[in-house]
Protein backbone atom coordinates (compact mmCIF):
# COMPACT_ATOMS: atom_id res chain seq x y z
CA UNK A 1 0.00 0.00 0.00
CA UNK A 2 1.26 3.43 -0.79
CA UNK A 3 1.48 6.05 1.85
CA UNK A 4 -1.49 8.13 2.55
CA UNK A 5 -1.80 11.84 2.83
CA UNK A 6 -4.28 12.04 5.63
CA UNK A 7 -2.58 14.82 7.48
CA UNK A 8 -5.30 16.79 9.17
CA UNK A 9 -5.20 20.29 7.90
CA UNK A 10 -7.21 23.42 8.09
CA UNK A 11 -10.20 23.32 5.83
CA UNK A 12 -11.25 26.11 3.60
CA UNK A 13 -13.30 28.83 5.19
CA UNK A 14 -16.44 27.59 3.47
CA UNK A 15 -15.98 24.03 4.62
CA UNK A 16 -15.42 24.91 8.24
CA UNK A 17 -18.52 27.02 8.54
CA UNK A 18 -20.64 25.79 11.39
CA UNK A 19 -23.80 27.37 10.06
CA UNK A 20 -26.28 24.51 9.63
CA UNK A 21 -27.71 25.91 6.41
CA UNK A 22 -24.42 26.55 4.65
CA UNK A 23 -24.39 23.31 2.68
CA UNK A 24 -28.04 22.37 2.79
CA UNK A 25 -28.68 22.47 -0.94
CA UNK A 26 -25.49 20.56 -1.73
CA UNK A 27 -26.28 17.96 0.94
CA UNK A 28 -29.80 17.44 -0.37
CA UNK A 29 -28.42 17.02 -3.88
CA UNK A 30 -25.81 14.47 -2.72
CA UNK A 31 -28.45 12.51 -0.81
CA UNK A 32 -30.84 12.56 -3.78
CA UNK A 33 -28.05 11.33 -6.03
CA UNK A 34 -27.24 8.50 -3.63
CA UNK A 35 -30.86 7.42 -3.25
CA UNK A 36 -31.55 7.54 -6.98
CA UNK A 37 -28.44 5.43 -7.61
CA UNK A 38 -29.58 2.94 -4.97
CA UNK A 39 -33.05 2.73 -6.52
CA UNK A 40 -31.62 2.27 -10.01
CA UNK A 41 -29.46 -0.63 -8.77
CA UNK A 42 -32.39 -2.36 -7.10
CA UNK A 43 -33.44 -4.09 -10.28
CA UNK A 44 -35.66 -6.59 -8.49
CA UNK A 45 -37.98 -3.97 -7.09
CA UNK A 46 -37.93 -1.96 -10.31
CA UNK A 47 -39.05 -5.01 -12.31
CA UNK A 48 -41.60 -5.82 -9.63
CA UNK A 49 -42.72 -2.20 -9.54
CA UNK A 50 -43.59 -2.39 -13.23
CA UNK A 51 -44.64 -6.04 -13.50
CA UNK A 52 -47.12 -5.98 -10.64
CA UNK A 53 -49.26 -3.09 -11.92
CA UNK A 54 -49.14 -4.48 -15.46
CA UNK A 55 -50.30 -7.88 -14.26
CA UNK A 56 -53.03 -6.26 -12.17
CA UNK A 57 -54.14 -4.28 -15.18
CA UNK A 58 -54.37 -7.44 -17.27
CA UNK A 59 -56.32 -9.17 -14.50
CA UNK A 60 -58.71 -6.27 -13.92
CA UNK A 61 -59.31 -5.46 -17.58
CA UNK A 62 -59.44 -8.93 -19.08
CA UNK A 63 -60.62 -11.04 -16.11
CA UNK A 64 -62.94 -8.80 -14.05
CA UNK A 65 -63.39 -6.11 -16.66
CA UNK A 66 -66.15 -7.82 -18.61
CA UNK A 67 -68.33 -8.18 -15.54
CA UNK A 68 -67.55 -4.71 -14.19
CA UNK A 69 -68.10 -3.07 -17.58
CA UNK A 70 -71.79 -3.85 -17.25
CA UNK A 71 -72.05 -1.42 -14.34
CA UNK A 72 -70.27 1.44 -16.09
CA UNK A 73 -71.82 3.79 -18.53
CA UNK A 74 -70.13 5.86 -21.16
CA UNK A 75 -66.54 4.67 -20.77
CA UNK A 76 -64.49 1.52 -21.22
CA UNK A 77 -63.27 -0.25 -18.09
CA UNK A 78 -59.69 0.17 -19.29
CA UNK A 79 -60.14 3.96 -19.32
CA UNK A 80 -61.80 3.73 -15.92
CA UNK A 81 -59.19 1.57 -14.21
CA UNK A 82 -55.85 2.92 -15.51
CA UNK A 83 -55.62 5.82 -13.01
CA UNK A 84 -56.27 3.33 -10.19
CA UNK A 85 -53.47 1.07 -11.38
CA UNK A 86 -51.13 4.06 -11.48
CA UNK A 87 -51.87 4.80 -7.80
CA UNK A 88 -51.46 1.16 -6.87
CA UNK A 89 -48.08 1.31 -8.54
CA UNK A 90 -47.20 4.39 -6.46
CA UNK A 91 -48.22 2.53 -3.30
CA UNK A 92 -45.88 -0.29 -4.20
CA UNK A 93 -43.06 2.19 -4.78
CA UNK A 94 -43.71 3.83 -1.41
CA UNK A 95 -43.60 0.45 0.33
CA UNK A 96 -40.13 -0.06 -1.13
CA UNK A 97 -39.09 3.34 0.13
CA UNK A 98 -40.16 2.35 3.65
CA UNK A 99 -37.87 -0.67 3.39
CA UNK A 100 -34.98 1.42 2.05
CA UNK A 101 -35.32 3.96 4.87
CA UNK A 102 -35.59 1.19 7.46
CA UNK A 103 -32.41 -0.43 6.11
CA UNK A 104 -30.53 2.86 6.23
CA UNK A 105 -31.64 3.54 9.79
CA UNK A 106 -30.90 -0.01 10.98
CA UNK A 107 -27.52 -0.16 9.27
CA UNK A 108 -24.40 1.76 10.13
CA UNK A 109 -24.67 4.40 7.44
CA UNK A 110 -27.03 6.70 9.30
CA UNK A 111 -24.54 6.86 12.15
CA UNK A 112 -21.87 7.92 9.71
CA UNK A 113 -24.12 10.65 8.28
CA UNK A 114 -25.00 11.82 11.77
CA UNK A 115 -21.36 12.02 12.77
CA UNK A 116 -20.70 14.28 9.79
CA UNK A 117 -21.61 17.97 9.54
CA UNK A 118 -24.68 17.05 7.51
CA UNK A 119 -28.26 17.93 8.40
CA UNK A 120 -29.75 14.51 9.09
CA UNK A 121 -33.15 14.90 7.46
CA UNK A 122 -31.57 15.60 4.06
CA UNK A 123 -31.30 11.80 3.90
CA UNK A 124 -35.10 11.51 4.14
CA UNK A 125 -35.55 14.12 1.41
CA UNK A 126 -33.18 12.07 -0.74
CA UNK A 127 -35.37 9.00 -0.35
CA UNK A 128 -38.57 10.90 -1.15
CA UNK A 129 -37.13 12.50 -4.29
CA UNK A 130 -35.72 9.15 -5.46
CA UNK A 131 -39.17 7.64 -4.93
CA UNK A 132 -40.77 10.34 -7.11
CA UNK A 133 -38.22 9.77 -9.87
CA UNK A 134 -38.76 6.01 -9.73
CA UNK A 135 -42.55 6.38 -9.76
CA UNK A 136 -42.49 8.69 -12.76
CA UNK A 137 -40.59 5.99 -14.66
CA UNK A 138 -42.84 3.11 -13.57
CA UNK A 139 -45.98 5.21 -14.14
CA UNK A 140 -44.75 5.98 -17.64
CA UNK A 141 -44.36 2.29 -18.36
CA UNK A 142 -47.78 1.47 -16.92
CA UNK A 143 -49.48 4.18 -18.98
CA UNK A 144 -47.57 2.96 -22.04
CA UNK A 145 -48.82 -0.59 -21.54
CA UNK A 146 -52.34 0.74 -20.98
CA UNK A 147 -52.08 2.59 -24.28
CA UNK A 148 -51.09 -0.62 -26.05
CA UNK A 149 -54.12 -2.29 -24.50
CA UNK A 150 -56.38 0.44 -25.83
CA UNK A 151 -56.32 3.22 -23.22
CA UNK A 152 -57.20 6.39 -25.12
CA UNK A 153 -57.14 9.50 -22.93
CA UNK A 154 -58.57 12.64 -24.56
CA UNK A 155 -56.48 15.03 -22.47
CA UNK A 156 -54.90 18.26 -23.64
CA UNK A 157 -51.27 19.02 -22.77
CA UNK A 158 -52.41 21.12 -19.81
CA UNK A 159 -54.60 18.28 -18.57
CA UNK A 160 -51.70 15.83 -18.90
CA UNK A 161 -49.47 18.16 -16.90
CA UNK A 162 -52.16 18.50 -14.27
CA UNK A 163 -52.54 14.73 -14.04
CA UNK A 164 -48.79 14.22 -13.74
CA UNK A 165 -48.71 16.97 -11.11
CA UNK A 166 -51.36 15.30 -8.99
CA UNK A 167 -49.64 11.91 -9.35
CA UNK A 168 -46.36 13.48 -8.17
CA UNK A 169 -48.18 15.11 -5.24
CA UNK A 170 -49.73 11.78 -4.29
CA UNK A 171 -46.38 9.99 -4.57
CA UNK A 172 -44.76 12.64 -2.36
CA UNK A 173 -47.57 12.27 0.20
CA UNK A 174 -47.53 8.50 0.52
CA UNK A 175 -43.74 8.37 0.30
CA UNK A 176 -43.49 10.68 3.32
CA UNK A 177 -45.94 8.39 5.12
CA UNK A 178 -43.76 5.42 4.12
CA UNK A 179 -40.62 7.26 5.19
CA UNK A 180 -42.19 7.82 8.60
CA UNK A 181 -42.89 4.08 8.79
CA UNK A 182 -39.28 3.35 7.82
CA UNK A 183 -37.95 5.64 10.53
CA UNK A 184 -40.23 4.28 13.24
CA UNK A 185 -40.24 0.51 12.77
CA UNK A 186 -37.43 -1.69 14.05
CA UNK A 187 -37.48 -4.44 11.44
CA UNK A 188 -38.02 -5.12 7.76
CA UNK A 189 -41.02 -7.29 8.61
CA UNK A 190 -42.69 -4.48 10.51
CA UNK A 191 -42.04 -2.12 7.60
CA UNK A 192 -43.65 -4.57 5.17
CA UNK A 193 -46.66 -5.04 7.40
CA UNK A 194 -47.16 -1.31 7.91
CA UNK A 195 -46.95 -0.51 4.22
CA UNK A 196 -49.46 -3.23 3.37
CA UNK A 197 -52.09 -0.64 4.22
CA UNK A 198 -50.84 1.53 1.35
CA UNK A 199 -51.32 -1.33 -1.06
CA UNK A 200 -54.75 -2.14 0.28
CA UNK A 201 -56.44 1.23 0.73
CA UNK A 202 -56.79 1.94 -3.03
CA UNK A 203 -59.08 -1.10 -3.36
CA UNK A 204 -61.67 0.54 -1.13
CA UNK A 205 -61.92 3.67 -3.26
CA UNK A 206 -63.19 4.57 -6.70
CA UNK A 207 -59.99 3.11 -8.20
CA UNK A 208 -61.44 -0.17 -9.48
CA UNK A 209 -65.20 0.05 -9.11
CA UNK A 210 -67.55 2.98 -8.53
CA UNK A 211 -68.20 3.33 -4.76
CA UNK A 212 -71.97 3.48 -5.43
CA UNK A 213 -71.86 -0.29 -5.89
CA UNK A 214 -70.44 -0.86 -2.39
CA UNK A 215 -72.35 -1.52 0.89
CA UNK A 216 -73.11 1.67 2.83
CA UNK A 217 -70.27 1.36 5.35
CA UNK A 218 -67.54 0.74 2.79
CA UNK A 219 -69.05 3.29 0.48
CA UNK A 220 -68.80 5.95 3.18
CA UNK A 221 -65.14 5.13 3.66
CA UNK A 222 -64.46 4.93 -0.07
CA UNK A 223 -66.00 8.31 -0.77
CA UNK A 224 -64.15 10.12 2.00
CA UNK A 225 -60.69 8.61 1.91
CA UNK A 226 -57.88 10.45 0.09
CA UNK A 227 -57.43 7.98 -2.77
CA UNK A 228 -60.84 8.69 -4.26
CA UNK A 229 -60.44 12.45 -4.94
CA UNK A 230 -56.94 11.80 -6.31
CA UNK A 231 -58.29 9.09 -8.62
CA UNK A 232 -61.25 11.20 -9.69
CA UNK A 233 -58.93 14.11 -10.46
CA UNK A 234 -56.61 12.02 -12.64
CA UNK A 235 -59.61 10.36 -14.29
CA UNK A 236 -61.29 13.68 -14.93
CA UNK A 237 -58.17 15.24 -16.40
CA UNK A 238 -57.30 12.28 -18.62
CA UNK A 239 -60.68 10.90 -19.66
CA UNK A 240 -62.99 13.88 -19.14
CA UNK A 241 -65.17 12.58 -16.31
CA UNK A 242 -66.79 14.99 -13.86
CA UNK A 243 -64.11 16.77 -11.75
CA UNK A 244 -66.27 18.61 -9.19
CA UNK A 245 -64.40 19.40 -5.98
CA UNK A 246 -62.03 16.47 -6.45
CA UNK A 247 -58.94 18.49 -7.47
CA UNK A 248 -59.21 20.74 -4.41
CA UNK A 249 -59.79 17.80 -2.07
CA UNK A 250 -56.95 15.88 -3.68
CA UNK A 251 -54.47 18.72 -3.26
CA UNK A 252 -55.54 19.34 0.34
CA UNK A 253 -55.23 15.64 1.21
CA UNK A 254 -51.82 15.29 -0.47
CA UNK A 255 -50.33 18.42 1.05
CA UNK A 256 -51.80 17.53 4.45
CA UNK A 257 -50.49 13.97 4.44
CA UNK A 258 -47.07 15.06 3.17
CA UNK A 259 -46.74 17.80 5.76
CA UNK A 260 -47.88 15.75 8.74
CA UNK A 261 -45.67 12.76 7.95
CA UNK A 262 -42.65 14.84 6.89
CA UNK A 263 -42.77 16.64 10.24
CA UNK A 264 -43.33 13.42 12.18
CA UNK A 265 -40.53 11.61 10.33
CA UNK A 266 -38.19 14.54 10.84
CA UNK A 267 -38.94 14.75 14.55
CA UNK A 268 -38.59 11.01 15.20
CA UNK A 269 -35.45 10.80 13.05
CA UNK A 270 -33.92 13.74 14.87
CA UNK A 271 -34.73 12.27 18.25
CA UNK A 272 -33.10 8.93 17.62
CA UNK A 273 -29.72 10.02 18.85
CA UNK A 274 -31.02 10.20 22.40
CA UNK A 275 -31.90 6.56 22.27
CA UNK A 276 -29.91 3.42 22.57
CA UNK A 277 -28.12 2.29 19.52
Amino acid at each position, binding site marked *: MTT*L*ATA*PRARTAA*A*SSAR*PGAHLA*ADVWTMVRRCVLLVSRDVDSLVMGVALPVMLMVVFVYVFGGAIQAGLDGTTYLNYVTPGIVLLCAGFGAANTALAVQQDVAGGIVD*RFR*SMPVTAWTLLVGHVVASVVKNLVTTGVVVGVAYLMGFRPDATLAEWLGAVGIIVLWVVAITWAATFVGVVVRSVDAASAATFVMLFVPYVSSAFVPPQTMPALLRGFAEHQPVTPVIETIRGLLTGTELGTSPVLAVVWCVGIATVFAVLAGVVFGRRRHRAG
Partner: protein
Amino acid sequence: MNDSPAVEAEGLTHRYGSVGVLDGVDLTLHRGEVLALLGPNGAGKTTTVRILSTLLEPTGGRARVAGFDVVREARRVREVISVTGQSAAVDDKLTGRENLVTMARLAHLPRAEVRARVDELLDAFDLASAAGRRVGTYSGGMRRRLDLAAGLVARPRVLFLDEPSTGLDPRARQDLWDVVRDVVAQGTSLLLTTQYLEEADQLADRVAVLDGGRVVADGTPAALKARVGEAAVELDLATADDAARVGSALGLVPGPGVGEPGATTALRVPTDGTLAHVRDVLDRVDATGVVPRGWSVVSPTLDDVYLALTGHPTEHPTEQEDAA
Protein backbone atom coordinates in the same frame (compact mmCIF):
# COMPACT_ATOMS: atom_id res chain seq x y z
CA MET B 1 -8.40 25.55 20.96
CA ASN B 2 -5.59 24.08 18.89
CA ASP B 3 -3.81 23.04 22.05
CA SER B 4 -6.81 21.19 23.41
CA PRO B 5 -6.49 17.45 23.86
CA ALA B 6 -8.14 15.43 21.12
CA VAL B 7 -10.61 14.03 23.65
CA GLU B 8 -11.33 15.07 27.20
CA ALA B 9 -14.11 13.33 29.09
CA GLU B 10 -15.02 13.92 32.70
CA GLY B 11 -17.43 11.79 34.67
CA LEU B 12 -19.44 10.63 31.67
CA THR B 13 -22.53 8.72 32.66
CA HIS B 14 -25.20 7.14 30.57
CA ARG B 15 -28.32 5.22 31.40
CA TYR B 16 -30.66 3.34 29.11
CA GLY B 17 -33.91 3.50 31.00
CA SER B 18 -33.09 2.22 34.46
CA VAL B 19 -29.91 0.45 33.35
CA GLY B 20 -26.69 2.35 33.92
CA VAL B 21 -24.16 1.71 31.17
CA LEU B 22 -21.55 4.34 31.98
CA ASP B 23 -20.81 5.14 35.58
CA GLY B 24 -18.42 8.07 35.44
CA VAL B 25 -15.89 7.61 32.64
CA ASP B 26 -12.83 9.86 32.67
CA LEU B 27 -10.67 9.79 29.57
CA THR B 28 -8.04 11.89 27.89
CA LEU B 29 -6.72 11.35 24.39
CA HIS B 30 -3.73 13.56 23.70
CA ARG B 31 -3.14 14.94 20.25
CA GLY B 32 -1.46 12.47 17.92
CA GLU B 33 -1.93 9.66 20.39
CA VAL B 34 -3.56 6.24 20.03
CA LEU B 35 -5.71 5.18 22.96
CA ALA B 36 -7.23 1.72 23.08
CA LEU B 37 -10.41 1.31 25.08
CA LEU B 38 -10.32 -2.27 26.22
CA GLY B 39 -13.19 -4.04 27.87
CA PRO B 40 -15.58 -6.97 27.85
CA ASN B 41 -19.02 -6.95 26.23
CA GLY B 42 -21.30 -4.49 27.92
CA ALA B 43 -18.46 -2.58 29.57
CA GLY B 44 -19.62 0.57 27.80
CA LYS B 45 -17.01 0.87 25.04
CA THR B 46 -19.47 1.47 22.22
CA THR B 47 -21.57 3.80 24.35
CA THR B 48 -18.48 5.87 25.13
CA VAL B 49 -17.58 6.13 21.45
CA ARG B 50 -21.16 7.06 20.52
CA ILE B 51 -21.18 9.85 23.09
CA LEU B 52 -17.80 11.20 21.99
CA SER B 53 -18.84 11.12 18.34
CA THR B 54 -22.08 13.07 19.10
CA LEU B 55 -24.33 10.11 18.22
CA LEU B 56 -25.66 9.86 21.76
CA GLU B 57 -26.11 12.45 24.46
CA PRO B 58 -24.63 11.57 27.85
CA THR B 59 -26.92 11.44 30.86
CA GLY B 60 -24.27 13.22 32.89
CA GLY B 61 -20.70 14.44 32.75
CA ARG B 62 -18.90 16.47 30.11
CA ALA B 63 -16.84 15.68 27.06
CA ARG B 64 -14.90 17.83 24.64
CA VAL B 65 -13.44 16.75 21.32
CA ALA B 66 -10.73 18.99 19.87
CA GLY B 67 -11.92 21.57 22.38
CA PHE B 68 -15.59 21.45 21.33
CA ASP B 69 -18.34 20.30 23.66
CA VAL B 70 -19.97 17.15 22.26
CA VAL B 71 -23.46 18.29 23.23
CA ARG B 72 -23.48 22.06 22.77
CA GLU B 73 -21.06 22.21 19.85
CA ALA B 74 -21.93 18.90 18.19
CA ARG B 75 -21.70 20.36 14.72
CA ARG B 76 -18.18 21.66 15.28
CA VAL B 77 -17.20 18.27 16.66
CA ARG B 78 -18.58 16.58 13.54
CA GLU B 79 -16.35 18.69 11.35
CA VAL B 80 -13.18 17.32 12.90
CA ILE B 81 -14.02 13.68 13.64
CA SER B 82 -14.74 10.49 11.83
CA VAL B 83 -16.26 7.39 13.35
CA THR B 84 -16.24 3.90 11.93
CA GLY B 85 -18.58 1.66 13.83
CA GLN B 86 -19.13 -2.05 14.04
CA SER B 87 -21.68 -2.25 11.25
CA ALA B 88 -20.27 -1.22 7.90
CA ALA B 89 -21.39 2.26 6.85
CA VAL B 90 -21.12 1.68 3.12
CA ASP B 91 -23.72 0.99 0.45
CA ASP B 92 -23.49 -2.51 -1.01
CA LYS B 93 -25.30 -1.51 -4.16
CA LEU B 94 -22.89 1.30 -4.97
CA THR B 95 -19.35 0.86 -6.22
CA GLY B 96 -16.39 1.60 -3.99
CA ARG B 97 -15.76 4.82 -5.85
CA GLU B 98 -19.40 5.94 -5.65
CA ASN B 99 -19.35 5.37 -1.91
CA LEU B 100 -16.26 7.52 -1.46
CA VAL B 101 -17.52 10.27 -3.76
CA THR B 102 -20.77 10.45 -1.78
CA MET B 103 -18.84 10.78 1.47
CA ALA B 104 -16.44 13.35 0.02
CA ARG B 105 -19.36 15.52 -1.06
CA LEU B 106 -21.13 15.20 2.27
CA ALA B 107 -17.85 16.15 3.94
CA HIS B 108 -18.02 19.34 1.84
CA LEU B 109 -14.72 18.84 0.11
CA PRO B 110 -14.27 21.44 -2.60
CA ARG B 111 -15.69 19.97 -5.82
CA ALA B 112 -12.37 20.16 -7.63
CA GLU B 113 -10.70 18.10 -4.91
CA VAL B 114 -13.22 15.27 -4.68
CA ARG B 115 -11.87 13.17 -7.52
CA ALA B 116 -8.22 13.48 -6.51
CA ARG B 117 -8.98 12.68 -2.89
CA VAL B 118 -11.05 9.63 -3.80
CA ASP B 119 -8.32 8.32 -6.12
CA GLU B 120 -5.73 8.88 -3.42
CA LEU B 121 -7.74 6.90 -0.86
CA LEU B 122 -8.51 4.07 -3.27
CA ASP B 123 -4.76 3.73 -3.92
CA ALA B 124 -3.77 3.97 -0.30
CA PHE B 125 -6.31 1.36 0.78
CA ASP B 126 -5.46 -1.02 -2.03
CA LEU B 127 -8.90 -0.71 -3.57
CA ALA B 128 -8.06 0.96 -6.86
CA SER B 129 -8.60 -2.20 -8.91
CA ALA B 130 -11.98 -2.84 -7.25
CA ALA B 131 -13.14 0.79 -7.37
CA GLY B 132 -15.67 0.17 -10.12
CA ARG B 133 -17.18 -2.92 -8.52
CA ARG B 134 -20.20 -2.94 -6.28
CA VAL B 135 -19.30 -3.19 -2.63
CA GLY B 136 -21.61 -6.18 -2.30
CA THR B 137 -18.94 -8.21 -4.12
CA TYR B 138 -16.12 -7.17 -1.74
CA SER B 139 -14.47 -9.42 0.84
CA GLY B 140 -14.85 -8.59 4.52
CA GLY B 141 -11.40 -7.03 4.65
CA MET B 142 -11.96 -4.89 1.55
CA ARG B 143 -15.28 -3.70 2.88
CA ARG B 144 -13.68 -2.72 6.20
CA ARG B 145 -10.91 -0.85 4.41
CA LEU B 146 -13.47 0.99 2.29
CA ASP B 147 -15.45 1.81 5.42
CA LEU B 148 -12.32 3.26 6.99
CA ALA B 149 -11.44 5.14 3.80
CA ALA B 150 -14.95 6.61 3.73
CA GLY B 151 -14.33 7.94 7.21
CA LEU B 152 -11.07 9.54 6.16
CA VAL B 153 -12.12 11.52 3.10
CA ALA B 154 -12.37 14.71 5.12
CA ARG B 155 -9.00 14.23 6.86
CA PRO B 156 -10.40 14.05 10.39
CA ARG B 157 -8.30 15.30 13.28
CA VAL B 158 -9.79 12.73 15.64
CA LEU B 159 -10.69 9.24 14.51
CA PHE B 160 -12.90 6.80 16.41
CA LEU B 161 -12.76 3.13 15.47
CA ASP B 162 -15.21 0.83 17.20
CA GLU B 163 -13.83 -2.71 17.11
CA PRO B 164 -12.19 -2.20 13.72
CA SER B 165 -10.94 -5.73 13.19
CA THR B 166 -13.84 -7.76 14.59
CA GLY B 167 -14.67 -10.50 12.13
CA LEU B 168 -11.55 -10.10 9.99
CA ASP B 169 -9.15 -12.93 9.23
CA PRO B 170 -5.54 -12.49 10.47
CA ARG B 171 -4.24 -11.33 7.09
CA ALA B 172 -6.99 -8.73 6.66
CA ARG B 173 -6.41 -7.60 10.24
CA GLN B 174 -2.72 -7.03 9.57
CA ASP B 175 -3.56 -5.01 6.44
CA LEU B 176 -6.01 -2.92 8.44
CA TRP B 177 -3.43 -2.29 11.16
CA ASP B 178 -0.92 -1.16 8.53
CA VAL B 179 -3.42 1.35 7.18
CA VAL B 180 -4.31 2.57 10.66
CA ARG B 181 -0.62 3.05 11.57
CA ASP B 182 -0.19 5.02 8.37
CA VAL B 183 -3.12 7.29 9.23
CA VAL B 184 -1.85 7.83 12.76
CA ALA B 185 1.66 8.60 11.48
CA GLN B 186 0.14 11.56 9.64
CA GLY B 187 -0.92 13.10 12.93
CA THR B 188 -4.49 11.90 13.40
CA SER B 189 -5.45 11.16 17.00
CA LEU B 190 -7.10 7.77 17.35
CA LEU B 191 -9.41 6.28 19.93
CA LEU B 192 -10.20 2.65 19.23
CA THR B 193 -12.18 0.08 21.13
CA THR B 194 -11.18 -3.52 21.00
CA GLN B 195 -11.60 -6.85 22.66
CA TYR B 196 -8.35 -8.06 21.17
CA LEU B 197 -5.49 -7.50 23.57
CA GLU B 198 -3.08 -8.01 20.73
CA GLU B 199 -4.68 -5.16 18.84
CA ALA B 200 -4.25 -2.81 21.77
CA ASP B 201 -0.66 -3.97 22.17
CA GLN B 202 0.05 -3.46 18.45
CA LEU B 203 -1.55 -0.09 17.93
CA ALA B 204 -1.99 1.78 21.16
CA ASP B 205 0.29 4.21 22.96
CA ARG B 206 -2.02 3.95 25.92
CA VAL B 207 -4.69 1.53 27.08
CA ALA B 208 -7.72 2.36 29.19
CA VAL B 209 -9.46 -0.67 30.63
CA LEU B 210 -13.20 -0.22 30.90
CA ASP B 211 -15.19 -2.46 33.20
CA GLY B 212 -18.68 -2.01 34.56
CA GLY B 213 -18.96 1.46 33.05
CA ARG B 214 -15.77 2.84 34.63
CA VAL B 215 -12.14 3.13 33.62
CA VAL B 216 -10.43 0.75 36.01
CA ALA B 217 -6.90 1.22 34.66
CA ASP B 218 -5.17 3.61 32.31
CA GLY B 219 -1.56 3.53 31.17
CA THR B 220 0.90 2.38 28.54
CA PRO B 221 0.68 -1.33 27.73
CA ALA B 222 4.09 -1.75 29.42
CA ALA B 223 3.02 0.10 32.56
CA LEU B 224 -0.15 -1.96 32.84
CA LYS B 225 1.79 -5.15 32.47
CA ALA B 226 4.23 -3.96 35.14
CA ARG B 227 1.31 -3.51 37.50
CA VAL B 228 0.51 -7.18 37.27
CA GLY B 229 4.04 -8.44 37.76
CA GLU B 230 7.46 -8.47 36.26
CA ALA B 231 8.97 -10.94 33.90
CA ALA B 232 10.14 -14.23 35.38
CA VAL B 233 12.25 -17.25 34.54
CA GLU B 234 10.06 -20.27 34.97
CA LEU B 235 11.71 -23.58 35.71
CA ASP B 236 9.98 -26.92 35.35
CA LEU B 237 11.74 -29.52 37.47
CA ALA B 238 11.42 -33.29 37.47
CA THR B 239 10.88 -33.85 41.19
CA ALA B 240 10.00 -31.91 44.32
CA ASP B 241 13.47 -32.77 45.56
CA ASP B 242 15.12 -31.10 42.57
CA ALA B 243 12.89 -28.10 43.05
CA ALA B 244 13.91 -27.80 46.71
CA ARG B 245 17.63 -28.00 45.83
CA VAL B 246 17.41 -25.37 43.08
CA GLY B 247 15.12 -23.29 45.22
CA SER B 248 17.52 -23.13 48.12
CA ALA B 249 20.41 -22.31 45.76
CA LEU B 250 18.39 -19.37 44.44
CA GLY B 251 16.91 -18.45 47.78
CA LEU B 252 13.36 -19.35 46.68
CA VAL B 253 10.56 -21.53 47.97
CA PRO B 254 9.14 -23.90 45.36
CA GLY B 255 5.43 -23.55 45.02
CA PRO B 256 2.53 -22.19 43.11
CA GLY B 257 3.18 -19.83 40.33
CA VAL B 258 3.83 -22.25 37.55
CA GLY B 259 1.57 -24.94 36.27
CA GLU B 260 -1.18 -26.12 38.56
CA PRO B 261 -1.77 -24.43 41.89
CA GLY B 262 0.14 -26.15 44.64
CA ALA B 263 2.75 -27.55 42.28
CA THR B 264 6.01 -28.22 44.07
CA THR B 265 8.09 -29.01 41.01
CA ALA B 266 8.02 -25.53 39.55
CA LEU B 267 9.98 -22.40 40.32
CA ARG B 268 9.30 -18.82 39.30
CA VAL B 269 12.37 -16.60 39.46
CA PRO B 270 11.64 -12.88 39.08
CA THR B 271 13.88 -11.21 36.51
CA ASP B 272 14.25 -7.82 34.91
CA GLY B 273 14.37 -9.70 31.62
CA THR B 274 17.89 -8.60 30.68
CA LEU B 275 20.25 -11.10 29.07
CA ALA B 276 22.76 -10.72 31.94
CA HIS B 277 20.24 -11.48 34.63
CA VAL B 278 18.67 -14.42 32.83
CA ARG B 279 22.17 -15.87 32.20
CA ASP B 280 23.03 -15.41 35.88
CA VAL B 281 19.88 -17.27 36.95
CA LEU B 282 20.56 -20.12 34.53
CA ASP B 283 24.22 -20.34 35.64
CA ARG B 284 23.14 -20.71 39.26
CA VAL B 285 20.67 -23.43 38.31
CA ASP B 286 23.40 -25.17 36.32
CA ALA B 287 25.76 -25.02 39.32
CA THR B 288 23.38 -27.17 41.37
CA GLY B 289 23.81 -30.03 38.91
CA VAL B 290 20.03 -30.39 38.53
CA VAL B 291 18.72 -30.57 34.96
CA PRO B 292 15.27 -28.95 34.63
CA ARG B 293 12.72 -30.60 32.36
CA GLY B 294 12.16 -27.22 30.76
CA TRP B 295 12.45 -23.51 31.29
CA SER B 296 11.22 -20.27 29.76
CA VAL B 297 11.22 -16.55 30.27
CA VAL B 298 7.67 -15.27 30.59
CA SER B 299 6.40 -11.72 30.69
CA PRO B 300 2.85 -10.79 31.64
CA THR B 301 0.44 -10.31 28.75
CA LEU B 302 -2.37 -7.82 28.57
CA ASP B 303 -4.54 -10.88 29.19
CA ASP B 304 -3.00 -11.15 32.65
CA VAL B 305 -3.61 -7.44 33.13
CA TYR B 306 -7.17 -7.79 32.08
CA LEU B 307 -7.83 -10.75 34.32
CA ALA B 308 -6.20 -9.05 37.28
CA LEU B 309 -8.11 -5.81 36.79
CA THR B 310 -11.56 -7.01 35.89
CA GLY B 311 -11.66 -10.39 37.58
CA HIS B 312 -12.82 -12.09 34.42
CA PRO B 313 -10.96 -13.21 31.31
CA THR B 314 -11.38 -11.54 27.94
CA GLU B 315 -14.46 -12.36 25.95
CA HIS B 316 -14.57 -14.55 22.96
CA PRO B 317 -13.42 -12.27 20.17
CA THR B 318 -16.25 -13.09 17.75
CA GLU B 319 -18.94 -11.84 20.10
CA GLN B 320 -20.23 -8.40 19.39
CA GLU B 321 -20.63 -5.82 22.04
CA ASP B 322 -24.27 -4.94 22.12
CA ALA B 323 -25.09 -1.73 23.85
CA ALA B 324 -28.56 -1.47 22.39
